[in-house]
């Protein structure tokens, strides 16, 4: 069996699943908010790159939009199929389970990247590009952060969604509590924080922060790759053992 073809076909169906009309409207609305804020900064004639990146990129994109979008798509890739019971059509096929996981992860991460990168890119163009080469570097840095973060969040919570139906709430809790509340108290959490991986990789383009606890680009990239690989392996392992909910459900 040509697994590549299977990945393509499953990804195609998953994309149509993830991009239903209502949810697309909701998410596009969400991703427009920071762009509007960037426009407000521009209108106010704000030139302080540091302040803009802290409020809009760190505060809105990295802390909120990126995890929300990527967790939603990550948990939704399998979540909707499990809830509706359509996952049985994927499971009852002679395809390696890893191919199913790869197809789902590719589509979830792909959609998340498309949305966050487009939104962050636009914000950067509006506010930062006029600020010269530093602004350009910051924009590229944060676009990279969006891409890395999308892949990490999406695959991690895709794997989790095969274990519990409340993966989305856990993802939101992770983002609010672990990355939001605790990581400022316990700097060691940086090693276990997707937010720090994203920012660390982005640091390759520009020195963004003065925070000593942050990760170097190479460490961040290594940790991100390990996370994605482990999540994919665990997801494939779990899918092999996946038991369909009974008919009473």
């Amino acid at each position, binding site marked *: 069996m040509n697994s590549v073809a299977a990945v393509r*076909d499953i990804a195609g169906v998953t994309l149509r*699943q993830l991009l239903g009309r209502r949810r697309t409207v909701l998410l596009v609305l969400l991703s427009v908010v920071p762009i509007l804020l960037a426009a407000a900064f521009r209108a106010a004639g704000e030139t302080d790159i540091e302040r803009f990146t802290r409020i809009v990129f760190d505060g809105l994109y990295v802390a909120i939009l990126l995890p929300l979008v990527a967790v939603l798509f990550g948990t939704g890739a399998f979540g909707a199929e499990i809830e*509706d019971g359509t996952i*049985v*059509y994927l499971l009852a096929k*002679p395809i*390696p389970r890893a191919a199913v996981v790869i197809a789902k992860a590719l589509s979830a991460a792909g959609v998340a990247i498309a949305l966050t990168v487009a939104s962050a890119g636009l914000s950067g163009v509006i506010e930062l590009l006029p600020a010269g080469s530093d602004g350009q570097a910051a924009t590229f840095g944060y676009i990279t952060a969006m891409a890395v973060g999308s892949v990490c969040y999406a695959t991690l919570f895709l794997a989790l969604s095969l274990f519990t139906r409340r993966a989305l709430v856990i993802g939101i809790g992770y983002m609010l509590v672990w990355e939001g509340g605790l990581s400022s108290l316990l700097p060691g959490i940086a090693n276990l924080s997707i937010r720090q991986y994203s920012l660390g990789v982005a640091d390759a383009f520009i020195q963004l922060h003065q925070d000593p606890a942050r990760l170097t680009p190479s460490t961040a990239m290594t940790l991100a790759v390990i996370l994605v690989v482990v999540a994919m392996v665990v997801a494939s392992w779990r899918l092999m053992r996946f*038991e369909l909910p009974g*008919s009473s459900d």
Partner: protein
Amino acid sequence: MTVQNVESMPGPAPAPAIELVNAARWYGNVVAVNDVSFALGPGVTGLLGPNGAGKTTLLHMLAGFLAPSAGTVHVLGRSPHRDPSVYRQIGLVPEREAVYPFLTGFEYVRFNARLQGMADADAASRRAISLVGLDDAAHRAIGTYSKGMRQRAKVAGALVHDPQVLLLDEPFNGMDPRQRLAMMDLLGQMAEAGRTILFSSHILEEVERIGTEILVMVSGRLAASGDFRAIRALMTDRPHTIKIRSSDDRRLATALMADPAVFAVELKDGSLAVQTAHLSTFRRLIAGASRAAGVRLVEVVSADESLESVFDYLVRR
């Protein structure tokens, strides 16, 4: 004979398409399937039982989605659990209705064909679609389908790769009688072509139409297996209990006892319980007997008409 007793199978017979040996499955301390053994070869077999009897669990074990907690399950000579390659030979129609609502019927069937790795997925899909008679609606989104159409789309998706073994969980749900007949014909044709087909149902009449081998499950156990008509006869020969209330139960009881069709009469709680072998004979008898005895009938109720009581009878027997 497609339903055979495992123990009585002669030595090196060709491996049956489906074989369970003392298979059991429990969830926590709930036993869903309890020590079931049977073997099936080509043909259509009905898996009957009331709701909650363990039919879906059994089919899920056959489809490799559940490992048996004890015993063995083999499909085409191997264990289907954690072996995706077995699906090349298995087609599965799940019980749940959901199908990707945004795909058209044709797209859905082709999706299945492609994931089965078929070289000419389009041609195979067209064939499967016309087998289930969905040609007219093939290019409409499944979200707009009626229950019966969705059910047929699912069947088309399951048989598009012409599997050796076809497992169908409640396939006739939501179909109208005409669609049911057509589907049963289709299953019959596939069986004649040497396929092994196992479908589940909780409605006796559905199976009656196909008139073939059945397995009856009750409370997770295999209660009966064999030719449908033989089992049906066994079920109908059992004594029926009829509850009667009348203006004078005692007098009516005496009158009824005189007739050989009545096995036993019991006066209890202000009503009369009568056991008889043949319902239809008794129905004719009661009218005459009551009139002759001058007794006015208040209520005549059959105490055990439901399918559950039929199954129940099979288990207790």
